[in-house]
C-alpha cells in the first residue's frame, strides 16, 4: 500500500514537472552551437478548415550571437517515419512560419533563445484525406563565410482525417 502511494506521488510529481517545463518556458542552455527544443511534432486528424499551431524554440549557444533562417523542407525519403509519405511541396503554403520583424533572418543573442509559433492551416477546399505525411521544419544558421553550414530539423508529422461521409 505504502509502495503504491509512493509510486503515485512520484507519478504526480513527474507530471507536474513535465507540465511546468512546457508552461514556464524553461529552456536548456547550450555552451556552444545551437539547437531546437522540439524534436517531433505530430498533428493528427487534421481536416479542411482546421488551423492549429506548435512551438519552435531556437536555442543559441553561449559562444556567440547567431542569425537563423527557418523554412519547411522535404524530408529525405529514406528517413521518413515508417509508412509515411512526403508532405507535398504544393501544400507547403499550409505551413505559416513567422517572419523576422526586421531583416531576412532571426537574430538570437548568445545564451538566449527565441520562441516561434508555426501554424498549420488546412484550407477548406483541400481534398487531401487519410494521408500520413512528414515534413521538416528546418532551422539553419546563416553563416556567410563558412564552407560548412549547420542546420537542425524538427520532424513534423501531418496526418489528415479520413473523409467524412455526408
Amino acid at each position, binding site marked *: 500500500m505504502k509502495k503504491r502511494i509512493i509510486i503515485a506521488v512520484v507519478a504526480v510529481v513527474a507530471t507536474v514537472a513535465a507540465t511546468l517545463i512546457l508552461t514556464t518556458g524553461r529552456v536548456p542552455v547550450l555552451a556552444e552551437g545551437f539547437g531546437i527544443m522540439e524534436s517531433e511534432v505530430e498533428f493528427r486528424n487534421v481536416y479542411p478548415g482546421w488551423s492549429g499551431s506548435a512551438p519552435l524554440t531556437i536555442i543559441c549557444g553561449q559562444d556567440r550571437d547567431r542569425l537563423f533562417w527557418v523554412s519547411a523542407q522535404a524530408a529525405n525519403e529514406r528517413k521518413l517515419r515508417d509508412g509515411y509519405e512526403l508532405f507535398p511541396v504544393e501544400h507547403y503554403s499550409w505551413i505559416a512560419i513567422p517572419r523576422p520583424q526586421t531583416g531576412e533572418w532571426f537574430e538570437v543573442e548568445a545564451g538566449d533563445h527565441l520562441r516561434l509559433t508555426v501554424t498549420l492551416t488546412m484550407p477548406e477546399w483541400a481534398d487531401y484525406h487519410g494521408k500520413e505525411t512528414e515534413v521538416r521544419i528546418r532551422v*539553419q544558421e546563416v553563416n556567410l563565410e563558412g564552407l560548412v553550414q549547420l542546420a537542425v530539423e524538427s520532424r513534423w508529422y501531418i496526418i489528415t482525417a479520413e473523409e467524412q461521409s455526408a
Partner: protein
Amino acid sequence: MTQLKRTALSLVLAVALVVAFTAPALGANPTVSITVTAEVVAITNTQATWGIGTVAVDAVVYFSATGAQDDDYSQIENTGSVAVDVEIQGTNIEGGDYDWTLAAAAGSETYSLYANKQATPTVYDVEVKSSTYVDIATNLAASGTNDWSMKFTAPTGFNAADDGNEKSATVTLVASKYVA
C-alpha cells in the same frame, strides 16, 4: 553541459505531451491532437572553413589544415538530448566565368566531393550530392562525436578563361532526431 543534461532529463518527462484541441462545433469534424516531443536537437562542428587555394586540373585536396589527408580533421558533436542522424549536402562551386558542377566523378567543369565516416575513417565513400542529403552519421547518441573529413577532386578540365577566378561552395550538415 551538466545543466543541459539535467534539463534534458526533465524534458524526457515531458515527452509526448499531448495537447488536445477540440474542434470547432461543426458536428462531424474530428478532434485534432497536436503532440509535441520536447527533446533538444543540437549539434556542433569544429571546422567550418576550407581555403582550398589554387587548384590544378585533377588535383585532389583533403579537408584539412594542409590539404593532405586528415581523417579526423573535423568533429561533429551531438550537444542535444536525443540521438540524431546527421546528413550532408553540397552545392556546385560558383564564381568566375564557369561554375563547377558537383557530381559523382570529376569531369570537365565538374568536381567531386566525398566524405568519410568515423566507422571507416580512411575510406571516403560518402558521395556528397547537391540533389539530396546523405548520411554522414546515424544514431549519434547525445554527447556522442563523429570525426570526419572530405576529399575534393578538381575538374579534369576547365576553360582557361577561368584561370585565377575565385569560386566558392557550401556544405550543409543537417541533424534530426534518429528514428529507428
